[in-house]
């Protein structure tokens, strides 16, 4: 397994809620990434964001791991939840909150605000 793929896998497995997106929560670069981020925020999810734009290899490795072709991609406790449309639909129906509560416990909203981590050759923690 490549080092990059291993880093991505670590984020998926170790972050309670991982959002792979175009841009960062502070500077979103795509409408669908924005929709996913908003739905997660409205539900109170503790989002760990990864920007896939710095290196095309990030997206390739991510899609190879997840079997999901498009960005954004949302994972809860290592499980792929889906892209923007699914996350939005689950947020509206209340199922996202239930999923988060089941996976992370009833206090999931208190975990704090978004954070951003980087993957790739020179990881920088912002």
């Amino acid at each position, binding site marked *: 397994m490549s080092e990059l793929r291993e880093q991505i896998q670590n984020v998926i497995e170790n972050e309670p809620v991982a959002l792979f997106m175009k841009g960062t929560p502070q500077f979103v670069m795509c*409408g*669908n990434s924005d929709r996913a981020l908003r739905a997660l925020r409205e539900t109170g999810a503790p989002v760990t964001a990864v920007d896939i734009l710095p290196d095309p290899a990030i997206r390739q490795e991510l899609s190879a791991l997840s079997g999901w*072709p498009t960005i954004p991609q949302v994972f809860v406790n290592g499980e792929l939840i*889906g*892209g923007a449309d699914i996350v939005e*639909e689950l947020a509206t129906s209340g199922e996202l909150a239930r999923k988060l509560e089941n996976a992370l416990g009833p206090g999931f909203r208190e975990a704090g605000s978004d954070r951003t981590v980087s993957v790739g050759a020179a990881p920088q923690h912002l």
Partner: protein
Amino acid sequence: MVTEPLQVLLARAFPDATALRVEDRTGGGDHFQVIVESPRFNGLPLLDQHRLVNEALAEPLRDGTIHELRIKTRGTE
């Protein structure tokens, strides 16, 4: 129509679809919304429903014809 090739791919993948629509969301020919209603989705988790649509559109997703895709699926039950 720029939506035609996607319509064809979806019709091929979901021959039993009871509703099938492709919209060019921005008029630019690369931001699409697809709506598919099919008995194949009955009882399937949303993730798997969207997976089937993504598979049907794998080629245009890969070659960049589709820059942004919104998917709406529903079963017939």
